[in-house]
């Protein structure tokens, strides 16, 4: 098992390196650079000399192989450099937003699990009844509904209900407070985006739970359990569900990895200052350093989650052994 983990960790290196090359090359194909964006933003006459000095200072006139080396060397020396736009260290820019994104991803996952597993189980047990059709329609609707629209509807609903009940409209706070400082304010801000993304995310997991459970329910050992007269509840909870949850664990973990970087649109709707928003800003400002490291962070989380899922799989299912 240790051998397997080490092997997988080593295999991550080419994937990460490939991602680094890809994002580095993609960014160099973007027309314009941070200096032009900054000068254009001032609205003054653009001095070619000023742009040149700016480029020189940011090391953008260096040959590409040197720039790439600097980018990769940052991971060895633990110095990721500074944002080209704000001039603050990349680790600082990411650090102040990481907590929000992580918390939101965890909360959305919890919402998804709490919705998906019960619904998926009910849907599988009552296969081809109106309950099943309702749950399936509910989950397909979740996949179909853009999370930003659900977010807009939630804000709209909040405004209208608070207006009707308390006489004045209430909006979730915009400023992020850590959950350890003020749990109430924190929750009143993050519960809404968590529901908006969690619903969509639960839809995928509900479908997975349903089809996995249906498959397991056809296994011989379930028939044996039925034959010896066990209660249906016991069969589902103790015999079938445990085995059916394996693929569900996978899909939930992988979606979680994507949530860390993929909440771009939800953060926009709820005006949250998270990693997704930072990413869009970095791309629009042509802030190469920040964009590169953000992409690598998302990719690394994804690749690591993949590994954790595979190890978890072997741990949960004794039939799976990696050699």
């Amino acid at each position, binding site marked *: 098992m240790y051998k397997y983990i080490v092997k997988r960790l080593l295999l991550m290196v080419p994937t990460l390196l490939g991602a680094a090359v890809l994002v580095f090359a993609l960014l160099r194909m973007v027309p314009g650079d941070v200096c032009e964006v900054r000068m254009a933003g001032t609205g003054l006459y653009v001095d070619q000399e000023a742009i040149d000095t700016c480029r020189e200072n940011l090391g953008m006139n260096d040959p590409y192989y040197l720039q790439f080396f600097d980018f990769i060397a940052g991971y060895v020396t633990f110095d990721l450099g500074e944002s080209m736009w704000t001039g603050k260290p990349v680790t600082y820019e990411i650090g102040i937003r990481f907590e929000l994104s992580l918390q939101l991803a965890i909360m959305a996952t919890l919402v998804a699990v709490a919705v998906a597993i019960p619904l998926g189980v009910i849907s599988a047990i009552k296969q081809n009844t109106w309950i099943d059709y309702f749950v399936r329609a509910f989950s397909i609707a979740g996949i*179909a*509904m*853009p999370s930003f629209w659900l977010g807009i509807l939630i804000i*709209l609903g909040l*405004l209208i209900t608070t207006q009707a009940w308390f006489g004045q409209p209430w909006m979730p706070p915009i400023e992020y407070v850590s959950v350890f400082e003020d749990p109430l304010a924190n929750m009143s801000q993050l519960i809404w985006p968590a529901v908006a993304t969690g619903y969509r995310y639960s839809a995928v997991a509900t479908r997975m739970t349903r089809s996995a459970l249906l498959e397991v329910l056809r296994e011989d050992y379930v028939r044996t359990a039925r034959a010896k007269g066990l209660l249906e509840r016991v069969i589902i909870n103790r015999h079938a569900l445990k085995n059916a949850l394996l693929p569900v664990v996978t899909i939930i973990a992988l979606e979680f990895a994507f949530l860390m*970087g993929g909440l*771009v649109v939800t953060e926009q709707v709820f005006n949250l200052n998270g990693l997704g928003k930072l*990413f869009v800003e970095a791309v629009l400002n042509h802030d190469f350093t920040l964009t590169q490291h953000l992409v690598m962070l*998302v990719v690394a989380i994804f690749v690591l989650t993949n590994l954790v899922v595979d190890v978890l799989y072997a741990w949960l299912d004794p039939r799976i052994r990696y050699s």
Partner: protein
Amino acid sequence: MATPDIGYDSGIEELPKSKTWLGAALEMMRKQPLGAAGGFVVLVMIFMAVFAELIAPYDPEANSFEFMLVGPSTDFLLGTDQFGRDLLSRIIYGARTALYVGFVSAFFGATAGLVLGVASAYFGGRIDLLFQRVLDVFMAFPLIIMALAVVAILGTGTQNVIIAITVPFIPQCARVVRSSALAIREIPYVDAARACGFSHTRIILRHMAPNVMAPYLIMLTSFVGQAILLEASLSYLGLGVQEPTAAWGLMLQGGAEEYAESAPWVAVFPGLAITLAVFGFNLFGDALRDMLDPKLRSR
């Protein structure tokens, strides 16, 4: 020889008796009610997109400062936006944009994935291994981040949005098609075709690709829904289709949140259109998967 009666469903299905379109549609409605509902939504969308000029009551791009943010009424069935443009007309024309982006990017993404996936399985060995690693890299990027990166390079606008959506689809489809094609690779007719001296291109395109049509079609239909959603997301962020073109995501971006309280119809109807469209394509795609993939049948 008659099939022996073995007392339970032998799994042998009777051939459908009627082969007319109407008969097939009725058959589908009975067996796949949800899928048929999805198919109906898809047909309505296509109808709206094709005959937009005839159905839409107003010009979707005509501003009218006389009728700004008018609520739903007999004159404007779904109301107007902050520029006085008729929402119903914009939603009808928006179907054109959504379908155009959806179909074109799904088709090119899935087809490029098909060719690459089959080629990778066909050549095998080192080429396949290398291709897998490249796919790993591409698949490690969230869809929206990949699309954003392409938009950053190419700029906004309908054509570039199509490219931005197509690119992340290719590895997804390639991976699925490759795993199906690996099994096809082992069937003797591929060796027979090689023995006949056919070129690699011919074997890949004429002999192997037609046999992985089922996963290809399944991916294709699921991509259309995803593409519509992705286009809406990009347009909402202001990085997709640009004004004054009618596009559903863009309609939500154009101040939908500011006017949410005073004019909720601006925020509600375009989102409803996106949801219904994607809902339709997903239901239709699910039904198609059930019909095409025997392993999942009767589930």
